[in-house]
């Protein structure tokens, strides 16, 4: 997977809809300066690893039954 580029995130913002974050805020995701909990690229890299995990038919977590 290639590293995410600012241009990609700007295109998502402009072409997919959603809140119009400032360009500086989009830059923050690519080159973090404020200390977001995890760098966005690291997060994407780890999500790509998690994508390889076969979760079979496990559904999303929902209510916790008392049975």
């Amino acid at each position, binding site marked *: 997977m290639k590293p995410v580029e600012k241009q990609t*995130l700007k295109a*998502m*913002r402009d072409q997919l809809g*959603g*809140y119009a*974050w400032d360009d500086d*805020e*989009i830059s*923050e*995701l690519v080159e*973090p300066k*404020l*200390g*977001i*909990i*995890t760098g*966005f690229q*690291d*997060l994407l890299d*780890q*999500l790509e*690893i*998690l*994508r390889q*995990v076969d*979760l079979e038919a*496990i*559904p*999303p*977590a*929902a*209510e*916790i039954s*008392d049975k």
Partner: protein
Amino acid sequence: MNASLAFMPIEKLALKLRNGDISASQLIELYADRIAGLGADSKAFISLDLEAARARAAAIGQDIDAGKPLGGIPYACKDLIDVAGLPTTGGSRVLADNVAQQDADIVRRLEQAGAIFIGKNNLHEFAYGATGENEIHGTPPNPYDPTRLAGGSSSGSAAALGYGLCAAAIGTDTGGSVRAPAALCGLVGFKPTFGRISTDGVIPYSWSLDHVGTLARSAADSAILFDALAADCRKPEATRLDRLTVGIPETFFFENCDGEILDHVDRLMTFLREAGASLEPVEMPSMEFTRTVSLTVQMPEALSYHNRYLDQRGHLYSPDFRAGLALGQCLLAEQYIRARRLMESYRRQMNLIFEQVDTILTPATPVIAPPIGAVEVTVDGISEPAGNAITRYTSFFNMSGHPAITFPCGMHSAGLPIAAQLVGRHHADEELIETARLVETGFDFELPLPDLG
């Protein structure tokens, strides 16, 4: 009036109230005086409702209903929780004018149990962060060392209790935001099984991970509060330490941790063994990507809620929360769904472990309260963001949904409290709290009161 009353557990205060040794009005005045003296230093409160508290206490008079274990007990709650007629600000400029029309379910339940609400506690803006820093209302300091953090995000709740400004506090816990500040401040922090305490009337941060929880002075007090807060609370089944099987995680939870914290948790393990408990190593699910999974659930959910304010009031959010929300918009739907499926996988793996053990013991935090303003903390030569460290041992159980309680078990040579965490089976909240109560009763350890000058 004796200041030690301000630090007295609910259990003992309630007895004094019922015996007529003290009136509800006197108790309110005790805390009101302390808030006048220490409220500004503690940065614990965003708003107060003392006149209403005084009126409520006067109405109760000397007639404390023995059937109401919280009768006349003053409490505070995190400013994410609605109290009719008062602003619920989330600690943010965004909702400075957001006056609640009705009480949250939990406020109603506490009122029915006889508790008296006194004020709203400071927090990390909209619960986004574990350091408890708040640029509007300030950063609540640790009562044991004002140069250190109380921890967050329920920072004001921990400070209010730690400074002796109320008898109990209600917070929210999405990754440890009740348990971690309680641990850092020498208090007992409890989060229930996911869903057992209503979140209606509480500003959401992440619906899939949010839990309402309690901060108290003892496990016994946590039981009293849980009884009032959970609609389906029951008496705990018979719980004995000598019949307990305690799981000790083989990895992650005892790694990269302050040596003195490990020593004190080790002492606790020795106590449990000597009390007849069986301690068994347990292999936990892989923790390598759990923070990533948690964030991938949190941020899109937070964005989805806050979208209602962004267009009109987006400029009023702090820059770091805006950055987190922006991240939420750049994740894919499948990544979010996969993260929630991984949460379900964690739940199933943990339920298998709980077929072998009754409870799991871990340190509550890998570090003592970090200095205010510290961006990173370093343990064993490894640095990480302070907020990550504070919740490193707690956040997994928000995903698995298991009940967890943190309680003090020692003092660090730096003069700050050390705490342990017990985790229980789904819906075994009552037995978990009872186990913590038994430990609290038997374990040879006494926490000194903070020196507040």
